């Protein structure tokens, strides 16, 4: 009973455990796998990512010679980044990946890999 009262008083005086999400950004770690990016300029179209993708989300465009991702199918397993020989596929810390229209998931998020030596 005494411990309960102490706990109640503590919880009254302390800050809430939850964060005010839309106003306040959520904290994620450095290794967090968020949105998938492909640096299409440096892609060598070797198709290893296509072969290793469990859901078929990543497909190599044979005419343009780079990988194209459908982010609505991606399950963020990180297998493509693991097998990529030139490290052009990477995951940013961006966790807000919802889109209003289905075709917006095929919009590519390009950009060079900020951690080129490291895996996923």
């Amino acid at each position: 009973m005494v411990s309960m009262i102490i706990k109640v008083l503590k919880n009254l005086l302390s800050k809430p455990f939850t964060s005010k999400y839309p106003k306040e950004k959520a904290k994620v770690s450095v290794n967090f796998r968020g949105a998938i990016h492909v640096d299409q300029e440096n892609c060598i179209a070797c198709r290893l990512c296509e072969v290793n993708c469990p859901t078929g989300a990543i497909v190599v465009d044979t005419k343009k010679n780079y990988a194209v991702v459908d982010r609505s199918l991606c399950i963020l397993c990180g297998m493509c980044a693991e097998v990529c020989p030139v490290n052009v596929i990477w995951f940013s810390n961006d966790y807000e990946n919802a889109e209003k229209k289905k075709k917006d998931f095929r919009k590519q998020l390009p950009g060079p890999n900020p951690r080129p030596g490291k895996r996923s």
Partner: protein
Amino acid sequence: MHDKIFPIGPQHPSLKEPIFLKLHVDGSYITKAEFNLGYAHRGVEKCAEGYLLDTALHAVQRTCGICSQCHSLAFLNAVEPMAGIEVPDKVYLQRLLSAELERIHSHLLWGGLMAHEIGLETLFMYYWREREHILDVFDDLTGNRVHHSPDLIGTAKRAFNRKNLDFILEKLDLIEPEVKELKEVMRSERVITSRFKKHGMIPRKMAIDLGLVGPTARGSGVENDVRVHDPYMAYAFKELKVKPVVRNECDSWGRSMVRCDEVFESIGLIRKACEMIDPKEDVPKRKNVFAKGTYGRGRSEAPRGENFHFVKVENNRISRIKMRTPTLANLICYSRIMEGEDITDVPVIMMSLDPCISCMERVAVIRNEKKEVWTSHELFEGKKHD
């Protein structure tokens, strides 16, 4: 005698997952219980057919959201001896860390849901607040909070460093006293004990006869734990011997206390494993895997019990994979356990078994009066040949 049928589910506020319970009641007492399944078939096994081994690993992990690491361990137990790969100790220890953290997170999740079923919403919040710390640890270690997929065949995606290990220990120090207090609340609160004690009885003999697994069997005095009687990976190390938590109460209370105590057992294991890991050592790089054998089978201890995988490989691709999740083994006791109970106790008894129905669902065959058998070819085509 007024025999009436009382339906619960497949969509019902007291059920978290789709199962249809058909309760024959006399007044408010249950005389007979039946259940129907087949409302959430996802087809992970079919999906994994034709995949490369590494890719199939990531598909298999998606079977369950709560125990994804344990599915991956069972699959690796099947595949790694088949491919003849030697795995370094550090990788084994990293896998143990993920698996045991997952056990803590699963049991805390169960505690919250149990409190929710009884109606103690505040206790539910307290349990899930502690669970949030474990999810933060997963985010830091592996990069994802729920489907963390840290494994590759023969190695891991990244090596844990000193900072990661310190973060784990820091969070464990934070949650241990809190979980102890929550257990004390469970032990002393009359509302909880009166709903649990002497309800949902599974005698020891019945648990052995039906072949129950996991905390459900351990709550009935059966020492059934894959980590002990068939140690795999890091559980086979001398320093990391698991002491199974066994209780002899045989009721919902026994099963609940087993889960509460297992959290502390897991915390102890993680502390020992953190000491054994060399933070400076790197894990080997990923290699392409070639399976030499054709068949493999693996087991692992998921938070709910024994998890079994059978893998068949042809031309280095998966040709058949069969999973048996712990809920399938425990499902058989559902109709027996409900007999003679009051109808208001059904949600609590269901929760004390910790069902994970959607992971267990494999195939739905609807029977009319005749028995129907579908071959795998017919299932693939989706129609029955005569």
